[in-house]
């Protein structure tokens, strides 16, 4: 789960990492009140879970209350790179003297935690890494190691926070690690970590997290009651939320062929097969969703999956691809027939069974003698058939 900037900063703030004073608001009235509290000038920042927000016009520096209201009225209805803006953050404007970048993340290759840092923050760290690889420091924290203040000091020295207070940098690194560990994060990124203050007064200079991104590990949700507050009504599609409540992995896409299968890999492969078949048939038919019924699914789970997929009005045909390991094709077939009985807005289905109880499953489907059911021998054939049906029903409509 990705957090919004204001949520990420709340976690940093709780850990004692300096962040600018800021108030989250969802309408221009609250923005006006926030401006009185924060003072002018201030920054109005669209809250959206996608990068390149600044370039898309999602951040505005304002000098008056009226400018702030105007800015919020522009930002609040915006959709940035396909993501609806949830609200705005009214934040203190800081005088930036220098920008750094620091992140802590799961490293899938070295199978530990990876600290990435550069003294040239503020822009894309990937670009800096490409153009000036020597400027980006990459260090590792072992899962078995206790990362303490001494380790943080050594790391801050290696990173080289020139022009900044190295001791404060070490404290921030240590606190970032605590945020990462205590919250079961997979990413904690501060970009920029800025040196702020009066250029002529050394005593006023300090480090401050101006923007932050945090991703939490969904698998760890069971041990964090506090994550309820981060549930995002803007992010999930209504069908995705419903599927999640039923314990199904469902991802809504934009196409016409609904897809249900067992196992994440086989379902992804089914999506690809539909896209490949559409290309061969010279059409722009696309998969409508990803739905994994998991291992050992019951007839009930299959029926619920059909209901979710067919709740999408764009779906013209459903491709059901099951290779039974623990899952029994017999159960799946029973679930399909139940859904045909109960769902009114039924559409044609294409079924491909293999493995555990495939023959029994197919004979259950055949005995129903329902014209909506099409059976294919292989997943490639099934994908071709599903695309053909989607095309034909599109032409009729």
């Amino acid at each position, binding site marked *: 789960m990705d957090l919004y900037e204001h949520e990420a900063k709340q976690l940093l703030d709780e850990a004692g990492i300096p962040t600018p004073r800021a108030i989250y608001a969802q309408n221009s009235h609250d923005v006006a009140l926030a401006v009185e509290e924060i003072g002018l000038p201030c920054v109005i920042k669209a809250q959206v879970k996608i990068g390149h927000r600044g370039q898309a016009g999602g951040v505005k520096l304002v000098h008056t209350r009226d400018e702030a209201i105007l800015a919020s009225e522009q930002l609040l209805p915006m959709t940035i790179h396909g993501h609806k803006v949830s609200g705005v953050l009214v934040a203190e404007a800081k005088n930036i003297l220098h920008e750094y970048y620091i992140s802590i993340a799961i490293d899938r290759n070295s*199978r530990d935690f990876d600290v990435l840092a550069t003294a040239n923050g503020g822009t894309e760290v990937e670009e800096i890494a490409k153009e000036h690889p020597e400027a980006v420091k990459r260090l590792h924290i072992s899962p078995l190691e206790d990362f303490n203040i001494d380790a943080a000091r050594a790391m801050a020295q290696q990173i080289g926070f020139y022009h900044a207070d190295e001791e404060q940098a070490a404290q921030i690194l240590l606190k970032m690690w605590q945020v990462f560990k205590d919250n079961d994060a997979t990413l904690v990124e501060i970009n920029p970590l800025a040196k702020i203050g009066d250029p002529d007064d050394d005593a006023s200079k300090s480090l401050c997290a101006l923007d932050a991104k945090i991703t939490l590990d969904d698998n760890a949700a069971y041990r964090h009651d506090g994550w309820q507050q981060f549930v995002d009504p803007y992010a999930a599609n209504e069908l995705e939320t419903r599927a999640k409540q039923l314990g199904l992995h469902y991802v809504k896409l934009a196409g016409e062929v609904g897809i249900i299968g067992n*196992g994440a*890999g086989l379902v992804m492969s089914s999506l690809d097969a539909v896209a490949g078949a559409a290309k061969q048939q010279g059409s722009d038919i696309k998969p409508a969703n990803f739905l994994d019924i998991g*291992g050992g699914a019951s007839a009930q789970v299959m029926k619920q999956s059909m209901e979710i997929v067919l709740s999408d009005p764009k779906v013209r045909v459903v491709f059901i691809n099951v*290779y039974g390991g623990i899952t029994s094709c017999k159960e799946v077939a029973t679930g399909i027939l139940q859904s045909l009985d109960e769902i009114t807005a039924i559409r044609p289905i294409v079924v491909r069974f293999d493995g555990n109880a495939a023959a029994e499953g197919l004979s259950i489907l055949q005995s129903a003698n329902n014209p909506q059911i099409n059976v294919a021998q292989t*997943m490639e054939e099934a994908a071709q058939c599903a695309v053909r049906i989607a095309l034909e029903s599109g032409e009729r409509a």
Partner: protein
Amino acid sequence: MALFIEQGAPVIVQGMTGHQGMTHTARMLTAGTRIVGGVNPRKAGTTVAFDVQGSSVEIPVFGTCKEAKEATGAKASVVFVPPRFAKDAVVEAIEASIELIVVITEGIPVADSAYMVALARQHGVQIVGPNCPGLVTFEPSDAPLPGVNLGIIPQDIVSYGPLGLVSKSGTLTYQLMGELSDIGFTAALGAGGDPIVGTTLLEAVQAFDADPNTKVVVMIGEIGGSAEQEVAAWASEHMTKPLVAYIAGFTAPEGKQMGHAGAIVSGGKGTAQEKKQALEAVHIAVGETPGQTAQYAREALSQVQ
């Protein structure tokens, strides 16, 4: 083939007395795996009866891995423990010097997996998984001992043959085994769909490359991370036998987790396209579909035989 485990090696099951554990212990026993005990502190001292081809087999339950190891000399453990208890279970197995730990459990927090994988590597213990279907090895029908089935991979899809298979996905493992059932396998290993796993695609490919009976290796990857690129980089320099690959998830959108915790394209990285390009750049054939991948495996085999 002995893939991280010898034929006939004694095996324990952690979480044997749960529903999944019971189902799959019965399956593994039927497949010829030498299951010698279960671990459950609340049921220590009891036994569980399994029906194996019509006759009843009594398996003892031990309170800890250490007790099970001392009593049985267990070399491997299969873990079906629920996510919130999985880390402690695996740490216990590592500390009991179990040599191979196959973690089937899906949904373990990645920080827990990072810890148990690091601890296992420090102790020289091999973890397979988590979030994987396990591993299965095959032997010729005239071999003195049958292969080993650790986990949930169905036994009856294939028999012994010259192919090796490693996969991030369970059902795609079965799919490819089914497509190539007429040829057969030395072993198949499900590496798992989590961001951090104990045995990477590369480690499995290296094990198959070192096995004299494996003639062609099939690798099934998917979006997320860069384990497939690691294989491409190593294979181009060191691989001594043909490798063919399949990658799932070309149609996966950015930023969406596709079922597996590790199957996600983020910041434009970990796409199926970049994996395919990395493999093809070093002349590893990548099938468009599982069917085409199977075809590539057949062609590769006909060239080496």
